[in-house]
């Protein structure tokens, strides 16, 4: 039995075939990736605002939270497939490259294999079948029933260029949020609120990621969704459908307050209504929409 010398081990089986420049580049790639991961790790703990969290927003409304759950379930097969395929590519790169093959090596001339091909047709079918069923269940749970159920409160959200109008029922309050200086939509905590979205001009989309997914506001018909905020706090969002030059200024703020604070707010609104809607925001051809920071956080 012969023992390979240390230098032979270091050189590896390929010796002169090594490509130092490429290895350097590969190493650089790995370093960049590692740096990205190191960057991401603290972000995983600090949800929201890091810009680098790999999860859906962990929403504070049960339906939004269910989306977060579903996303995580889909991630399991997704990660397995991703790692498996990338590993297979790496194996090909490391083990089957021509430089590690003996000279004149002729690989097996496979033309296919029916059983294997059926297997990798059926396995993805099963995986997507599971994902499809999970998604359909979630669709039935949170996208139909609760919308039609008895709700404690209705808010009609009307999108316009460029802002939002919130009409509260049964409280009869109206809030208008115009452009960048978003006026918060104040809602009570732990209340099932049905949201109806409308538009009076072009298509908008109402999206507050840490409460629920988006719902388009389309002229001509109403869309429905619901939220049931479970935490007092401030939630940001903005219009998600390109609607003109002021699109990025269609900021949204949702302020979730306690039931008592909400009652007080309604009383105050009724005695001192917010200014009437000034819908006329001209589409400036050259005017820049200078964005200024939203109202400061209070969460």
């Amino acid at each position: 039995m012969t023992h390979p010398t240390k230098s032979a081990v270091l050189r590896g089986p390929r010796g002169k075939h090594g490509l130092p420049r490429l290895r350097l580049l590969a190493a650089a790639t790995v370093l960049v990736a590692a740096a990205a991961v190191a960057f991401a790790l603290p972000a995983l703990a600090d949800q929201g605002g890091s810009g680098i969290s790999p999860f859906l927003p962990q929403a504070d409304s049960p339906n939004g939270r269910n989306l977060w759950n579903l996303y995580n379930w889909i991630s399991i097969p997704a990660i397995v497939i991703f790692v498996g395929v990338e590993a297979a590519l790496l194996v090909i790169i490391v083990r089957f490259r021509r430089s590690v093959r003996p000279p004149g090596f002729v690989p097996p001339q496979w033309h296919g294999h029916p059983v294997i091909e059926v297997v990798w047709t059926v396995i993805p079918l099963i995986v997507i079948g599971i994902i499809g069923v999970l998604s359909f269940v979630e669709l039935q749970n949170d996208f139909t029933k609760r919308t039609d159920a008895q709700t404690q409160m209705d808010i009609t959200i009307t999108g316009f260029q460029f802002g939002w109008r919130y009409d509260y029922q049964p409280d009869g309050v109206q809030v208008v949020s115009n452009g960048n200086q978003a006026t918060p939509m104040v809602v009570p905590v732990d209340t099932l609120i049905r949201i109806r979205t409308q538009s009076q001009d072009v298509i908008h989309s109402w999206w507050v990621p840490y409460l629920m997914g988006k719902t388009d506001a389309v002229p001509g018909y109403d869309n429905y969704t619901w939220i049931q905020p479970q935490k007092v706090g401030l939630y940001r969002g903005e219009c998600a459908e390109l609607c003109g030059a002021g699109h990025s200024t269609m900021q949204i703020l949702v302020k979730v307050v306690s039931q008592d604070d909400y009652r007080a707010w309604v009383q105050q609104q009724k005695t001192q209504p917010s200014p009437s809607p000034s819908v006329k925001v001209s589409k400036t051809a050259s005017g820049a929409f200078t964005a200024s920071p939203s109202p400061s956080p209070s969460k």
Partner: protein
Amino acid sequence: MATVAAPPRPKAYDQTFFAPVSIWLTTTDHKLIGIMYMFTGIASFIVAGIFALIMRVQLSQPNLNIINAELYNQLVSAHGTTMIFFFVTIFLTGIANYMVPIMVGARDMAFPRLNLLGFWLIPMSIFIYYAGFFTGGALNAGWTGYPPLTELKYNPGTGVDLWVFSLAIWGVSGIMASTNFLTTIVALRAPGMKLTRLPLFVWAQISTSILLLIVGSPLVAVLVLLEFDRQFGTHFFTTDGRPVLFQHLFWFFGHPEVYIMILPGFGMISEIIPVFSKKPIFGYSTMVAALFGIVFLSMAVWAHHMFTVGMNIYVETFFMVMTMLIAVPTGIKFFNWIATAWSGSVEFTLPMKFAFGFLATFLIGGITGVYLSSVPVDTQLHQSYYVVAHLHYVLFGGAVFTIFAGLYYWFPKITGRLLNTTLGEWNFWTLFVGFNGTFLVMHTLGLEGMPRRIVTYNGGYGEEGWGTVNVIITISSFLLAFSVLLFLINVIWSHRNGELAGDDPWEGNSLEWATTSPPPPYNFDQVAPVRSFMPMRDIRAGRMAAAVVADPSPT
């Protein structure tokens, strides 16, 4: 790579390549038309890339005001339109125009003059679109141009009208090209080239042409309806009409268009991997079946772009299931490519590097597509940067990496010279790193609620980290642009000074390697009868056998 003595350069080709412009204007040679298509595509790529860089600078920090919102919206729209319609589709039409007749052993396309007309409609289409920038503003509603935002009431300028005319002409050109490809492949194949012996790139071109033939007309139709709304007072898509109908019709074209941009790339990968693995393609017939599975399914998934417009949940479920099903044929292709290279003798030349870059990155686009296909999850991801990341992993990781792979693979055939390897290596690695640096973190931005198509963000409450991530993206996007610059330098330098390639530098499998590099105007002196789906391999084996017979010296 076999060392080959410098082949005699075909005279006719040299004369045309550096010929007066008149020859380029009037040629019906599919190769020259193909080159013109490719040039048009690359020029569009550069222009749209510059637009992207301007947008990236604008987005690199919160609250920047480098360009205003109106111009930003025009650039967003022009970037999308140019990349999709004038770069990827056009470039791929060009490379197919060059290669398909040669690969099937034909002398030219079936309808050379239609080919000429079809090509010249494209510069016209581009010119009409870009005229918008000089007549008060081009399209500013995103490349999808959803009404009512594109209706006259909200968009009185001429940009939308020019966009409609531009794409209508583009659609007509596409229909011409598709007809031409299908006729060529059906009618002009070399003796012995049965359909079961077609190269997979040609199969991919068949499926692409069928798709474009079917969905090109609805595109033109929906644009004409929009123009009726704008100029003749109809109410198809106005606030009083059905704005969402436009989305249905548009995406009936728009989704198959994604596959029109990606299937030819699949075809190129199916050519490149067997050649550099020294193995036949794994599962030829399942590869073809998967192509047609994709063609069929891609026309039944359009509404997955519309999961937030408020459809019936059972309709949404149908489109969700169909969308997920597309993962199956795509998965088959993926696994077959891996099986083709598996236990082969894999030579990582530049085309193969780009092919593996494609496999590594397109996979991510495919997986994020499954997340997006789930209706509930999509209500969070739709219209966010997650979608921007996904579509770039599909179209850049997919189409652009395959375009580079195809170019490095076929450049020696087109010019007779190899692209420079050192520049090519730098091109690949900067592209790979720059691409992933640009688009990987866009996923997380979208997950945190950054919508696409916004001119700026305030970086305030809930957006604290967006500035940092956007800076990373902007820096990486410049690395990406640098990589494309390296590629252009490489093309310009190598087409005159590159190493002579010889007729068959890679020991290819298909017929284009049987003729000279570059091919003569009539492509072949004669085509040997085709006996398998790897005819060039048979020809090479025949030549070797003949050489052994001719060489009496003992071994």
